[in-house]
């Protein structure tokens, strides 16, 4: 039983490391702020969460140590990392950072100009 849980923990940690690598590639290769932010906030969140879950399972199975702080950390990252991504994207848009030139749709464009007229 312990060996099975340790195997699951190893798979989770490798999966999380792979997702972090995918995040790094996305940050390098994607064209503009918004797509990069999409890669960074989404896959890095899941990657870090799986690494933490793997570490939690390992210490639970191997040492019998139930570390509730890791569970709290998983919940906290799941709650706050997307909001951080949202705030960075919104700050970029409000400061007028341009979209990728091949983008076809900008739903916020009218709203933003309307806001500038009101101002």
């Amino acid at each position, binding site marked *: 039983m312990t060996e099975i849980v340790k195997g699951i923990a190893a798979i989770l940690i490798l999966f999380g490391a792979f997702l972090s690598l995918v995040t790094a590639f996305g940050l390098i290769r994607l064209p503009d702020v918004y797509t990069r932010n999409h890669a960074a906030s989404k896959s890095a969140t899941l990657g870090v969460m799986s690494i933490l879950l793997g570490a939690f399972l390992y210490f639970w199975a191997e040492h019998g140590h139930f570390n509730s702080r890791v569970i709290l950390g998983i919940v906290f990252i799941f709650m706050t990392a997307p909001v951080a991504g949202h705030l960075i994207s*919104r700050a970029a848009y*409000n400061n007028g950072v341009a979209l990728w030139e091949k983008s076809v749709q900008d739903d916020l464009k009218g709203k933003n100009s309307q806001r500038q007229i009101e101002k």
Partner: protein
Amino acid sequence: MKTNDLILQTVTKVAAFVIILFSISIFLGGHYSPGGGFVGGLMTSCAVVLLLLAYDLKTVAGLLPIDYKIMIACGLLISVSTVAGSWLFDAPLMTHAFSDFNFPVLGKTTLHTAVLFDLGVYLVVIGVTMTIIQTIGESE
């Protein structure tokens, strides 16, 4: 430009609660695990700073009506009186003592006076951090 901070404010309500609980856990567990008054105090002031980011200074001052300079004084007073308390028992300065108590609900609990010293550190750290940040934030 008035922006809509609904998402940030809603998450802050939950996150500040979690951060404060975690800082109290770190503060109380300081003698058996990494942590203590300094890290706990810094983390509590982090929660207040998060509230300051999501709301403005006046709202947070209404939420937590604390004068942080008085908080620094209270923390120093607690630490100094813990140190001076060893005089009462004719021991060298900063001698700390512990004893076992039987509480009705908690059962047998060991209490140590070093925790009181740590409480002073905790209050001073919160007070200093919040005084610095509020002073910088208020000056236009």
